[in-house]
């Protein structure tokens, strides 16, 4: 038709629209806030791992050096401060994925659909597929990078206290377990995908915000419930006089009495006057020993990786669903096909 387009066809292959640059420009405030949060969290975690742990360890050393009956001067403030800062940082890190879900639902997709600027983008040279891919890929990179850094620093801080601070949390303590490893990163990515999906499905910013937070909480609950079962547990049977094989040393899967024939029953109540009395009652019931299925410390990484894999699978599912919703919203995704019916 016109000379301009003819010569453009003769020129070099098509330049691609610079979607990444505009995504960053539009969500600049969110990026700034995220970077500030990551930097602040990293600084606090470094402070926790260094000076605070040292001060608390010194306090515990003083406390343990005391004998029983002496008056004991020890640095209680340092110990309490360590405990408070550790708890705050752990809970804040665990809450980060929910913040990501809220932002993704409200600002990333919900507001764009509500105000019509998504359509503006689709008629200005970005296909819907490209639009959503950019919107998922770049924030996923930022979220994964930031959360991974914080999780790594948290693990480092926790390891620094291991053995030196008596009241440091165990590896299997609920919040510590998750903020020490990749499950929090995987949850953050699943939260991003869940938020993008609810924003597209609901089309309005504030409802999408609320629903994506609730959805992420549901995903979290599901992952918690499944986690002990995602890796084969270690099963021990000990004699009735001994008690459980490994109490308070790992993630419990099942506990009870082992019965003849191989199975196990839940621990019944026993109100005898002595230990032998209970053992006798249990034997009458057919028990042959204590049954304990648990995950010891060596299962830390398998559990982390399988739970992360589960969460990433959910993230992939949400992403697929988001593309399906996008197809329904815009009629067609690709701009490369020729004339078809």
């Amino acid at each position: 038709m016109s000379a301009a387009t003819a010569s453009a066809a003769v020129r070099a292959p098509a330049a691609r629209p610079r979607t990444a640059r505009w995504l960053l420009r539009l969500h600049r405030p969110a990026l700034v806030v995220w970077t500030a949060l990551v930097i602040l969290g990293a600084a606090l975690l470094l402070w926790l791992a260094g000076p605070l742990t040292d001060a608390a360890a010194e306090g515990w050393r003083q406390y343990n050096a005391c004998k029983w009956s002496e008056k004991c001067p020890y640095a209680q403030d340092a110990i309490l401060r360590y405990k408070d800062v550790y708890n705050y940082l752990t809970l804040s890190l665990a809450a980060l994925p929910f913040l990501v879900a809220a932002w993704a639902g409200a600002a990333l997709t919900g507001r764009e659909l509500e105000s019509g600027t998504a359509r503006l983008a689709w008629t200005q040279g970005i296909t819907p597929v490209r639009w959503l891919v950019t919107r998922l890929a770049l924030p996923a990179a930022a979220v994964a990078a930031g959360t991974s850094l914080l999780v790594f620093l948290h693990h480092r801080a926790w390891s620094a206290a291991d053995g030196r601070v008596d009241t440091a949390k165990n590896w299997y303590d609920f919040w510590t377990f998750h903020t020490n490893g990749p499950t929090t990163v995987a949850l953050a990515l699943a939260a991003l995908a869940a938020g993008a999906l609810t924003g597209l499905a609901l089309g309005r910013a504030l409802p999408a915000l609320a629903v994506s937070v609730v959805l992420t909480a549901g995903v979290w609950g599901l992952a918690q419930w499944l986690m002990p079962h995602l890796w084969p547990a270690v099963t021990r049977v000990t004699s009735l006089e001994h008690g459980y094989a490994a109490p308070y040393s790992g993630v419990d899967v099942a506990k009870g009495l082992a019965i003849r024939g191989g199975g196990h029953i839940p621990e019944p109540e026993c109100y005898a006057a002595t230990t032998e009395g209970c053992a006798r009652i249990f034997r009458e019931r057919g028990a042959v020993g204590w049954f304990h299925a648990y995950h010891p410390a060596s299962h830390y990484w398998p559990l982390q990786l399988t739970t992360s894999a589960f969460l990433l699978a959910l993230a992939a599912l949400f992403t697929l669903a988001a593309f399906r919703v996008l197809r329904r919203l815009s009629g067609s995704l690709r701009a490369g096909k020729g004339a078809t019916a």
Partner: protein
Amino acid sequence: MSDTALGATGLGKRFGRRGGWALRDCGFRLPAGRVCAVVGPNGAGKSTLLALAAGLLPPTEGRLTVLGTTPAAARARVGYVAQDKPLYPQLTVAETLRMGADLNPERWDAETAGRIVAAGPLDPKARIRSLSGGQRTRVALALALGKRPELLLLDEPMADLDPLARHELMGTLMAEAAQHGTTIVMSSHVVAELEDSCDHLLLVGDGRVRLAGEIDDLLAAHLRVSGPAEKAGLDAHTVVEDRVTGRQRTALIRPAGPLGDDWRAAEPTLEELVLAHLRNPQAPALTTAPAATEESAA
């Protein structure tokens, strides 16, 4: 490269599984290079039609070809301005235009876009959220025209503009059409304005196409006749509207043969044509350029 800018066969769109039909059984053909007015009452389906053509909605039934391919495939060559003119409130005017340039790297015409914005005059550093309705329309049009589209779809573009701006932007659009052969499809309420600039008409009422074709052809196909009230004899022709006021009978008809002597006949104005069809939805539709016909030689 097809000669048809926009063609529809049996096009229908329903929102949701139990909603009403926004468009039903629409068929028309718009040749390339025309300036087409889409006219109709509120809720007739004009916005839906334009959104379908822009590739933003999938049709429920029927077929729609844009520039010879599916609407989605043609999106790069189509410019679209929605009725609420969505823009990013936090960007400045200059950034909005730069975004347009970045997103359409090989097709962007910075001069045209800049000229439209400068004629405002608009401060390039002003944020979109601080602009008035008319100024936002100007920026939205600049974005659409800067893309150098082959087909331009405008949903009530002149709604927010003052008469001077309307006149000026209309002139810009017509110049664009003349210079680059852009096909322009514009929906509006104000028929009188369109009469001078548009050469093609699409009248949509209640989700159906009532009139489609070149305005000259459509006007030539109708006659406004008037005569005494008692006089009959219009049954041989297709009667669009028939009104009796006092002792005078006025009717708009599509003549199927010669009229009697007592009738006074004249060619209707576009406004009379449109109003008559809108007032009488039961009148049969007239499509002088139906889809799925062979391509006529240019």
